């Protein structure tokens, strides 16, 4: 029970690593920086494993396991509505999944980074930020109340800002970091108001108290339903910012300015999934707010399609993956929105494996080509960097949803729930399935452009080389997980139990508004073999294969076809190539008017013109009336006497007026 009593150790280890490297790392040799950075995360992973082992033996009644360490905020404690927030941590099934995913993927990416960042300046700084990120991400998933979650929430945003702008001498990197922070903060504004409303509705920010209160509220009365919906929508807007959904996704593609391991860890595997985690965590509130649920599903579904269409035309290998991430996050929200929280979290986990792997392999490609990111200048790399090729292919098969790979299981569950779950809707399913076909197309386009065909780069000047062992081993481990990470759900295909789903069920049923009957999967009375066949050869899989074939036709069979098509569909191509001009629209619609008004109206007119005009005008008036008053001191005795009389009369009147006021 040691770790269960001292959950804080999981947070302490990475923050210690960050502090040591951040304060003294400059003077350390690289090996020392490495051992501090990787060592702290490795110890964190071991601590998490030990925690999970102890968690396993807990009786069901002891979950969620909450430990409160000290009072972090306190005010109005003696009034009838005290406000108190403890620094409290919580472990339940959802936390366990998140802890394992974050610490394992985090560890692998740290190891990879020691190779990838080897020749970069500011090595210690990079790892200090990475460890700091681990600290905040783990805080986010272990917090037992919304306030501690918010610490992690804002903290990972900070680390994202620092790491996107890691190469701060580049203006585009600094711009991208700032954009990421400010855009997500826009969402956080709503998130903050959501927290305020939640506190005054539930009287607490601690999950267990909030949920107990929520489950006692009547969703069928207008007022209660309204409040719950408002809370859920406000919190979800925060998730829209953090998890890069429409319309606040614009920061994520730019975030690719950061080093590639950062994109893998923060902008694919962990931080951007925080919004999904939060929605799943707050499921007792969301489940009682059907409108908000529908909003979550719709935003997720449309984002999944929208981002996938943009990914079709992009040539920057990391940009394709960025839009793909936005799209996949959309799937997770779709899952949560139709009530299949476990499926959403399942996809979160498998996505962490395969998308982390995709970014790391993309990094390996970029590394091999000496920094080239443009896919039109790649090609023919298959034989030259075989480990990278095979691992990336596995990840691509996984994200495309080819049966047997991790992504297949999780995406299948989401689409299944969209079709037949508690909040299902056929059009959500149809859009999701169509986007899955697009996903398969743009991912195989990426593979074909990068690895197949003839090299389109200068082979004499570019020395292509496979990455070192410390980079390829994490790739292989992640590839293994990208295949087998989904198999816990495999028995479901033959009418058995989805172990992942069953493990998470207590989190999602404890405060569920209506008792969910665990759905019987597959048609009864059909043999296991037929069930398996039906499950595997579903419409999503067919579309995925079509996507693969189309990509093959376009990029292997007829390499000139894409250009021809682009010419024929010129309008659509320009629209997609320019990402629907969303950035430009925001610039013209919001940013420029705001700056213009601030500068030319508020500052120049109101401040300098109106207010200071009055102030300086008063001063001038005072000076001039002083000039008049000076005339009074003429030296003429008779005029002085006259003024004495006037003054005395005036003073007496004033005195009387005052006394009159006071007496009354």
């Amino acid at each position, binding site marked *: 029970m040691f770790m269960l009593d001292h959950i804080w150790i999981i947070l302490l280890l990475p923050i210690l690593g960050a502090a040591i490297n951040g304060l003294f790392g400059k003077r350390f040799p690289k090996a020392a920086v490495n051992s501090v950075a990787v060592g702290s995360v490795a110890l964190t992973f071991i601590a998490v494993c030990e925690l999970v082992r102890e968690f396993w033996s807990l009786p069901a009644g002891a979950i969620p396991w909450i430990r409160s360490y000290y009072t*972090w*905020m*306190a*005010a*109005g*404690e*003696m*009034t*009838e*509505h005290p*406000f108190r927030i403890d620094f409290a941590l919580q472990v339940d099934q959802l936390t366990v999944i998140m802890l394992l995913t974050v610490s394992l993927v985090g560890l692998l990416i740290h190891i990879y980074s020691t190779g990838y960042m080897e020749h970069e300046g500011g090595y210690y700084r990079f790892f200090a930020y990475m460890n700091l990120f681990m600290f905040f991400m783990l805080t986010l998933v272990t917090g037992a109340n919304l*306030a501690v979650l*918010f*610490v992690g929430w*804002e*903290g990972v945003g*900070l680390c994202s*800002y620092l790491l996107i*702008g890691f190469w*701060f*001498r*580049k*203006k585009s990197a*600094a*711009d991208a970091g*700032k954009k990421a*922070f*400010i855009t997500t*903060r826009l969402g*956080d*504004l709503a998130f*903050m*108001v959501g927290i*305020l*409303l939640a506190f*005054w*509705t*539930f*009287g607490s920010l601690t999950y267990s108290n909030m949920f107990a*209160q929520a489950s*006692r*509220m009547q969703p069928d009365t207008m*007022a*209660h339903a309204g*409040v719950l919906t408002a809370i859920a929508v406000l919190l979800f807007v925060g998730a829209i910012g953090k998890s890069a959904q429409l319309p606040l996704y614009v920061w994520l593609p730019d975030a690719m300015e950061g080093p590639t391991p950062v994109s893998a860890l923060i902008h694919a595997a962990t931080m951007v999934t925080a919004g999904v985690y939060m929605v799943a965590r707050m499921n007792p509130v969301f489940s009682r707010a059907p409108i908000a649920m529908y909003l979550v599903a719709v935003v997720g579904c449309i984002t999944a399609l929208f981002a996938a269409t943009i990914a079709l035309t992009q040539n920057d290998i990391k940009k394709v993956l960025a839009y793909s991430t936005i799209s996949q996050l959309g799937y997770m929200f779709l899952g949560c929105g139709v009530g299949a929280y476990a499926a959403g979290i399942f996809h979160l986990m498998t996505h962490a494996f395969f998308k982390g792997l995709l970014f790391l392999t993309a990094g390996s490609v970029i590394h091999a080509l000496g920094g080239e990111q443009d896919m039109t200048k790649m090609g023919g790399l298959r034989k030259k960097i075989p480990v990278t090729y095979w691992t990336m292919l596995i990840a691509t098969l996984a994200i495309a949803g080819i049966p047997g790979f991790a992504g297949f299981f999780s995406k299948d569950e989401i689409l299944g729930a969209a079709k037949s779950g508690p909040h299902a809707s056929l059009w959500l399913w149809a859009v999701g399935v169509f986007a899955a076909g697009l996903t398969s197309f743009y991912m195989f386009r990426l593979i074909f452009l990068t690895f197949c065909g003839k090299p389109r780069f200068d082979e004499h000047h570019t020395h292509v080389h496979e990455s070192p062992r410390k980079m390829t081993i994490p790739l292989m481990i992640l590839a293994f997980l990208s295949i087998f990470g989904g198999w816990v759900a495999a028995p479901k295909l033959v009418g058995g139990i989805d172990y992942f789903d069953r493990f998470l069920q207590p989190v999602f049923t404890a405060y569920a508004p209506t008792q969910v009957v665990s759905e019987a999967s597959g048609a009864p009375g059909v043999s296991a073999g037929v069930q398996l066949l039906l499950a595997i050869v579903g419409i999503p899989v067919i579309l995925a294969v079509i996507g693969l074939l189309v990509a093959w036709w376009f990029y292997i069979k007829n390499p000139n076809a894409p250009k021809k098509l682009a010419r024929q569909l010129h309008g659509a191509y320009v629209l997609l190539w320019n990402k629907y001009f969303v950035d430009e629209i925001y610039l013209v619609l919001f940013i420029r008017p*705001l*700056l213009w*008004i*601030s*500068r030319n109206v*508020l*500052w120049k007119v*109101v*401040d300098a013109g109106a*207010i*200071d005009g009055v*102030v300086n005008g008063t*001063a001038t008036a005072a000076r001039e009336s002083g000039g008049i008053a000076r005339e009074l001191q003429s030296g003429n005795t008779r005029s002085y006497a006259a003024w004495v009389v006037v003054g005395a009369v005036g003073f007496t009147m004033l005195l009387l007026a*005052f006394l009159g006021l*006071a007496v009354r």
Partner: protein
Amino acid sequence: MHAQASYLLTVVTFLPLFSVAALLVLRSDDHVWIRRIAFAASVGEFAVSLLLLRGFDSTDASYQFQEFYNWIGPSIHYHMGIDGISLFLVLLTTFLTPLAILCSWKSIQHNVKGFFISLLVIETAMIGVFVSLDLFLFFVFWEITLVPMYFLIGIWGHERRIYAAVKFILYTMFGSILMLVAILWLYHLTGTFDLPVIENILANSAPLSPTVELVLFGAFFLAFAIKVPLFPLHTWLPDAHTDAPTAGSVILAGVMLKLGTYGMLRFCLPLFPAAAHKLAPMIGVLAIIGIVYGALVATVQHDLKRLVAYTSVSHLGFVVLGIFAFNAVAMQGAIYQMLNHGVSTGALFIVVGMLYDRRHTHEISEFGGLATPMPVLMALFIFIALSSLALPPLNGFIGEFLILIGTFATHHAWASWAASGAVLSAIYLLWAYQRVALGEVTVEKNRALPDASGRERFILGTLAVVILFMGIASPYFTRPMEPAADALLQQMNNQLQRPQNAMRRGVPVKIGPHAVVLPAALAERQARP
């Protein structure tokens, strides 16, 4: 009232003045020893003021360490005392003064003696304002703060120092005169200058007529609102800051602005609760305008110091909002935010001053890419900026969060609008930081600028530690504040519910958190004993 006599407040208040005497003895060209003695004196003062913390009973709402002597005639007394509201403001003053002295170590080279004497006199005056419980004594200290600040800006300031100093003094004097009239009027009504006695008389034996109350409230409030400064009375602040020396800005932003918000808490609310309540909607709106307006105008500044100055307009808007939300949580948040603003904005001004020491300009376009030549200073800069933009778990977050939580109880819309200040602060601070620190070095002579010296690292490091500590361990500060804040609200509440007040308004007024959104949860909690 504490029976045992204590001289601690007198010592804390006048110790800096005694060290001025020591400075006067020194030759005025002996710069080294002038600095050392001034610094040692201010550190000693800080140490002595920590005794207040040790002796303070944080469960007691009444004034502690009281001192009461006859001073002038029968009605003017030397009456001092502190409660949970003023305790940490005194400590903030004694904490910031040594740092202000330390950051002027190199940058002040002419008339050094006069400069440090001014700083120490200001320290005494500001502490005096916070501990005075006699209106006359209060007013004397209040006015004394102006004189050295006028000199600090006018003598050691930058290009337009005379304009800035005159503007500062005229603006504040205008408010002071109104307040003086109001104080004399109160004396005329009650026959005393003693604050607790006046409170008692107004509350029980001789309540004010509504008109008089409104007029008196207005006079006090205007004086304090100018000091804060509350929109639209803020235009003296950017000018004063831009042309003040670094230490002047640190003191001005760190402590002097809080004289205004402190005054609101100490005088406006308890003496004129009905008027305060009546005007609160207007004041709250002005505070929110200030939050948004200050932030927007800060965004487009090209002078770094002016930018930081406008952020004060925005942040102090939060404090005023918290005070006039009439809610225990928001009020403690407001008091806490005063401390946070003092530490964080003081630190920001120190960073700006360090840049000025190197380049003698505040123009942002003259900087750019400074993280390359001075990584340590820029790292500390971003840390302080993050605390100012309320990133948890740093201090600024706690203050703003408490204010928002408390305000939301009574005014959903106010809190929601105010929360937008968090987005805007991220915009102006990160943009400013980018233009100063990130990118390539744009001005050639910046390439060779030295990084933070040991002295500078010590100053900013100390502030960074305090910023982090206040973010992690806030109950250590907010708990001693609570009894005083609760008592103040309770007292207002009682007065508003007095029959004549209630009748006047038709319905009894309830202050404090209402159950906003009905739910069963809350109703149940209320029902519980």
